């Protein structure tokens, strides 16, 4: 593989913007997952995905 290590304008812009956007989106979805778990805990008392009355 003839890989070029040259960091030109297009490569810097592509890598930096991709890293920032990926970080932002992962942060957003982790936050959404966290709030979903908190809602489930609020609704069921603990993180039980099935509403089994014997759990309480």
């Amino acid at each position, binding site marked *: 593989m003839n890989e070029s290590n040259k960091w030109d304008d*297009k490569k810097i812009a592509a890598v930096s913007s991709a890293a920032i956007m990926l970080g932002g989106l992962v942060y957003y979805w982790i936050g959404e997952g966290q709030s979903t778990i908190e809602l489930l805990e609020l609704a069921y008392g603990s993180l039980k995905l099935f509403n089994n009355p014997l759990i309480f």
Partner: protein
Amino acid sequence: MLGSMLSQYARTLSVAAVLLLIGIIEAFGLRDAVYGDLLPFFTWMRESSWFGVIGTTYGSIYATVEAVHLLSMAVLGGTVLATDLRLLGVIFRDVPSETLVTGTYKCFKWALFMAVLTGIFCAAGVGDKIYYMQVFWIKMLVLLTGSCFMIFIKQPFLTSRAHSEISPWTLRLLAVTSILIWFTVAATGRWIGFS
């Protein structure tokens, strides 16, 4: 010297300028200041604009336009998955990734254009509802930044050289970011529909 540096690193400096602009908007609370002033526009879109009136009056027309919107998103998603999964080496391994990147781009642009056009019509029909939805604004933010990323950053970079000259990790980063961008646009779009 400054002039040559500006022209040599125009894209990188544009990314830095956008980040700086976002920082200024957040630091000075400009987003909150503008948000309140946008309500009359959304109310006008639903109640007074011709597409808002058509959308709220004729359910069949709204449904038809929404179907075109969903089909456009499906085509867009198809081009994104075909290109990015190829860059990740998951599918179409017998087709050069350069061919897919250039071949699907025209289709991507038309699908994006149609999705935005029909999306404006769909948004107008529920303008006063979506204004209050945080997920709508997240979708708009990701759609805008994602489109700019695809058109001004990713595509020019991938078509500027042979992919064998690009680090595989750079290709993977671009592909995963692109997939997550359009997954977020699609997911938040459906979220609006179910809210």
